[in-house]
């Protein structure tokens, strides 16, 4: 436990150093023409994530430090009574609930720190592979900002049964359910972008669509858990395990996989194997749903989480088969990841050589040479003339117009006001 705390303190150091750097870079080092509303949604997502981290990680830092003090130096921030040799010390006033408040004040923003970058990657990939502009670019930015703000005022939904004042609980129910609005906006925008698109399939977009699927199916159980009257029944059961693995764990992992498949050529100058990518996707989505979907039902049946075995209770004898089934899917899923690992390391050295812009993408990273150079572009940094989502624009020669192409060269497709 002490090592766990030391590790977290180091980790927070890393997250803060990284986060400050990301924000400063985005604010100060944009190239000519790259206004904030011409930034790809990935960059917006990373920036908002970094801000969330900068604001919330220090709170976990404090919580971890105080806990270290309590455990190692005899303070009592989280302990109300300390007994030494049977006699209570004179300290008073510490509270274990305080740790929960501090922890979840980070804890909830943390789920968006995990999710937002994945959503950003998905926006970019879905738009590129659908060959359509992202639906509702500004709404996407706005909903991310609203989610980021709300994520700081909902932490109490993890604490409905700690003895917190029930009135306070209902305030947290309200703020929590508000999060459904920007989340629904995002889902709607993804679906509208995919709607009637001529999707160019690749492992990346399959994983991105998988993310959207998890965001929906896991988000729906979030509405149940966010409602204190319902949550009290399923708190600390497998229902919760199912919810957070689908909406946070699997969504974000799928976003990460999507990102890896999509930007692998940018990172390593080679392509990953497509067939193995598809195989990896189908086995993984099957085993994720196979593992976590049944957990909803055993959770509703009352099976608590964090128990080593549930064999002591007559009433749970019926779930044993379900648990075995879940484990079979979990092990299948684990094997599926080995396909990915093999594909990843093999392609790093032996993959097909990548061309400069393999996905016919608009964003700037694909204008840099395949071979990495310090400073990214060997000559001048390119200038930006348009937003990043001019895919399938009516009247254009090609189905994509990179950000570096000025409007003066695309007279046939310019909209009103674009010169």
């Amino acid at each position, binding site marked *: 436990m002490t090592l*766990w705390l030391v590790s977290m303190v180091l980790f927070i150091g890393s997250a803060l150093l990284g986060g400050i750097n990301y924000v400063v870079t985005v604010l100060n*080092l944009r190239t000519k023409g790259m206004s904030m509303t011409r930034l790809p949604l990935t960059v917006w997502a990373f920036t908002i994530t970094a801000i969330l981290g900068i604001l919330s990680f220090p709170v976990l830092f404090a919580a971890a430090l105080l806990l270290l003090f309590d455990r190692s130096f005899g303070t009592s921030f989280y302990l109300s009574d300390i007994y030494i040799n049977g006699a209570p010390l004179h300290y008073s006033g510490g509270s274990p609930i305080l740790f929960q408040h501090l922890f979840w004040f980070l804890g909830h923003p943390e789920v968006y720190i995990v999710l937002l970058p*994945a959503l950003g990657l998905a926006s970019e990939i879905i738009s590129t592979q659908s060959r359509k502009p992202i639906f509702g670019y500004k709404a996407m930015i706005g909903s991310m900002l609203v989610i980021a703000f709300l994520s700081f005022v909902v932490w109490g939904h993890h604490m409905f049964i700690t003895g917190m004042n029930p009135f306070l609980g209902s305030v947290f129910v309200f703020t929590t359910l508000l999060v459904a609005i920007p989340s629904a906006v995002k889902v709607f925008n993804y679906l509208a972008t995919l709607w009637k698109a001529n999707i160019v399939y690749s492992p990346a977009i399959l994983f991105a669509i998988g993310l959207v699927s998890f965001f929906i199916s896991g988000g729906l159980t979030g509405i149940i858990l966010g409602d204190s009257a319902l949550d009290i029944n399923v708190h600390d059961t497998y229902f919760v395990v199912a919810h957070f693995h689908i909406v946070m764990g699997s969504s974000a992992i799928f976003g990460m996989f999507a990102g890896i498949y999509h930007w692998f050529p940018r990172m390593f100058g080679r392509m990953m194997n497509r067939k193995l990518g598809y195989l990896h996707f189908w086995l993984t989505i099957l085993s994720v749903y196979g593992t976590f979907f049944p957990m909803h039902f055993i959770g509703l049946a009352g099976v608590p989480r964090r128990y080593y075995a549930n064999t002591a209770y007559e009433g749970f004898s019926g779930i044993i088969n379900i648990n075995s089934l879940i484990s079979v899917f979990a092990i299948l899923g*684990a094997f599926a990841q080995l396909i990915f690992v093999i594909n990843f390391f093999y392609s790093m050295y032996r993959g097909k050589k990548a061309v400069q812009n393999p996905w016919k993408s608009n964003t*700037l990273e694909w204008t840099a040479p395949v071979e990495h150079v310090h400073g990214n572009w060997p000559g001048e940094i390119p200038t930006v003339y348009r937003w990043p989502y001019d895919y399938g624009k009516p009247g254009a020669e090609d189905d994509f117009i990179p950000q570096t192409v000025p409007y003066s060269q695309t007279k046939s497709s310019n909209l009103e006001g674009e010169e």
Partner: protein
Amino acid sequence: MSDHTHGHTGTHEAHDHHEHHQSFWSKYVFSTDHKMISKQFLVTAIVMALLAMFMSVIFRLQLGWPDHKFPILEKFIGSWGKGGKLDPNFYLALVTIHGTIMVFFVLTGGLSGTFSNLLIPLQVGARDMASGFLNMLSYWFFFASCMVMTAAAGYARLRIGNDVVVGEHGLVHRFSIARRN
């Protein structure tokens, strides 16, 4: 610059045209280049993810077949899986460390570390991060915390190894392992 591939074959790493003399250390370890740092984050995260996934397989074996013994466990985790049964205390340690690694090390450090690093400078049109040095430090703090977390798993094992065998035959042997810490 058009899309070209010069004759630097054999490695996946392209050499920088301007600086040909980069040693292993300055290229892979003390790199301040955001593209290299992003690869460092990604590879570290993949290793941590495999570790956490392995943990989940171990406790899923326990949850799926609570009455069954898996002698193979002893091969992987030694005294944690004495006689093919997962130790109950260690179950808790595993679940906690599994969750911590997945949430913080894979999906926070790994995800943001990889893609913010790779894409922010390239997509906004910057030559690198605002501070390459802080960026390198960020990776090194991350690496250190990964190591300490892995050690925490190992330490849980030694302590539990000790508790479990007190009063059993292997006492002396186990004690000597536990004392090393």
